């Protein structure tokens, strides 16, 4: 019976991305050796996040309130909106400590082959935000791949009717890499987007 409980936890942990059987076993036996309160705290945190997590009513970031911390923060530049595909992208941009504006999460990207049309994303909500809030710049930070690019092109067309500057994050070579190993498309885009020094 005890083995059944352990097997059950292993199977449940295996549902998580990147966790195979061996890792799940290791985590299970680590949990068994953890102090009771710490193990319960992990369980409570999972429970709480599932119960309280919701999308921000303005930017569709994940939050536990009606409006997320970023949208509530009065010190942020409210004239700029950075458009991203997923809430996890916000964490990465925030970590760079370079951007102090607001965000808008699309919750995906346009993908014809998967049947993901613009109507299935939060694009209409972005247009409404731009229209209503006197936004001066929309930064399109969708992924630099075909889906992200098509999504950016579509949003740019939708926003053409409004007096707002639409910009796209730069393409180019990743820092620390060697130009010798860059492929022609990346290098072409980097040259196309070159800037005066």
């Amino acid at each position: 019976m005890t083995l059944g409980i352990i097997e059950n936890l292993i199977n449940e942990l295996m549902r998580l991305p990147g966790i195979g059987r061996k890792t799940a076993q290791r985590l299970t036996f680590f949990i068994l050796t953890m102090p009771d309160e710490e193990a319960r705290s992990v369980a409570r945190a999972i429970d709480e996040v599932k119960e309280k997590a919701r999308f921000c009513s303005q930017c569709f970031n994940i939050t536990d309130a009606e409006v997320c911390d970023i949208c509530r923060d009065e010190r942020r530049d409210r004239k700029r909106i950075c458009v991203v595909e997923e809430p996890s992208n916000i964490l990465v941009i925030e970590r760079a400590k370079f951007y102090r504006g607001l965000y808008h999460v699309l919750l995906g990207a346009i993908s014809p082959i998967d049947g993901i049309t613009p109507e299935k994303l939060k694009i209409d909500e972005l247009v409404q935000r731009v229209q209503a809030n006197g936004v001066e710049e929309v930064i399109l930070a969708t992924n630099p791949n075909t889906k992200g690019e098509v999504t950016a092109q579509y949003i740019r067309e939708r926003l053409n009717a409004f007096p707002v500057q639409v910009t796209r994050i730069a393409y180019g070579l990743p820092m620390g890499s060697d130009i010798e190993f860059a492929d022609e498309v990346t290098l072409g885009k980097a040259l196309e987007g070159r800037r005066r020094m």
Partner: protein
Amino acid sequence: MLHRTEAIILKTMPFSEADLIVSALTLEYGLVKTFAKSSRKTKSRFGSSLEPLTYVRTSFWGKEDAALPRLTQADIIRPFQKIRDRMACFFRVMEIVELTLGFLIEREVQRDVFHLLLSILMKIEDEGPANDRDVLNTLLYKIRFLDAVGYGPRLEGCARCGGSGYNFYIAQGSILCGACAKGMDSPVRLSPGMIKSYGTLRSWEVSKSARIRLSRTLLAELSDMLDAHIRYTIAKPLKTKAFQPS
């Protein structure tokens, strides 16, 4: 075993944290799905070589019957970036990609289809931005592709008796004359011009198709007939159809 072949990337699907499952039409092995480890990372050695439509020289490693061999290399031969840069054109091309994925069986060698897709992509990119040419080139692909996989509609006279007729029966995938069609559902009436255009698109060499000029009415009629035929054959509409102007 290491396999080397030329391929056209058709579709990628995120897998795990930073990997991709890549569906590609290869010259030597037909439609193949491979696993590209860490390909979504910024410094991935694959770079942009796994973007849809890219024509690449690939290597993948796996046993003959491996369900998901590992992609080890993809060097760009032609990126077809100009197609991806034009949104409307890209949507049209994705329709033929979905068609290809829908009909082909994995690991069944289809050299004709590979050369056809490659030549159509080259034509679309070389002919530059012109919506009517994009429509014609994608139609050309659909007609030739359906013929190659054995699902092409039959429009050269009644499919049963060989007599003349202009009524196309979707469930039969062919034209039937009045006598042979007794008791069948209502057909789609095709114009003689459309049937002639269909024959031209089927028989002309792809390299010479730049000379073909069709009116918008004929293009629309051909598109509608082919879409109805495809929808019936695969028993569902293509997802990419939602991206075409109605």
